[in-house]
């Protein structure tokens, strides 16, 4: 269980960057001028956060599960 030296850790991060930088030239397969449908407001993933956050709160206080919903919720003693 040795502690990796600080320098080595930073260099590892840079090494990952090399790998990712090499990936950068992947050409986007949907060109910017083909994004008409994607730009349509109906394709927005969360068009009304005030409503989706509320509904997530309604479900969240009744369920044991939490997380991976996209909403950042605060805590409450709702029971």
């Amino acid at each position: 269980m040795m502690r990796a030296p600080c320098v080595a850790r930073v260099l590892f991060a840079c090494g990952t960057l090399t790998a990712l930088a090499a990936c950068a030239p992947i050409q986007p397969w949907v060109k910017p001028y083909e994004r008409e449908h994607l730009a349509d407001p109906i394709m927005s993933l969360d068009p009304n956060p005030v409503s989706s956050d509320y509904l997530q709160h309604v479900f969240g206080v009744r369920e044991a599960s939490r997380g991976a919903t996209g909403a950042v919720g605060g805590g409450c003693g709702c029971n």
Partner: protein
Amino acid sequence: MDSTRTTRRLKFVQRGLALSLLAALPALATTSATPAPDFQLSERGGTAPISLGQFKGQVVMLNFWASWCGPCREEMPILESIQRKYKPLGFTMLGVNVEPDAKAAEAFLKETPVSFPIAYDPQSKVSKLYDVEGMPSTVIVDRKGTIRFVHRGYKPGDENEYLNQIRALVRE
């Protein structure tokens, strides 16, 4: 210990990073010296096709836009004012609409009319020809037909750069 081996390997990777960084540097360069490819598209409100070649001798600013693109809509009135100001000096704006269906573009132009020619590129032929990588995209071509400046995207304030570049080219 193992740390020397690790450090040596990481140093090798670091050298590789420096090299690949140089190679992977994105084309931030907004200047070039390639001839602007010619094309023929149907013109809005015209029966004859419009081509880039017919504007040789003038400074041409090609603007690739779509009605669904917010910054494109924001930019339009500014492009119109540039057209009005520089047309007498041998300049023309040429809008290229990239939408497959002209209906939405027509509706937008009715609300925001422009005096410069608009060409329709419904099959994205010219977008591909000019390697359009952002919406809107602006390509400024000089009097000899060479691409001199390329802009990707629009944010308020970019028009100052446009004006500087046009002023320089118009004087040639």
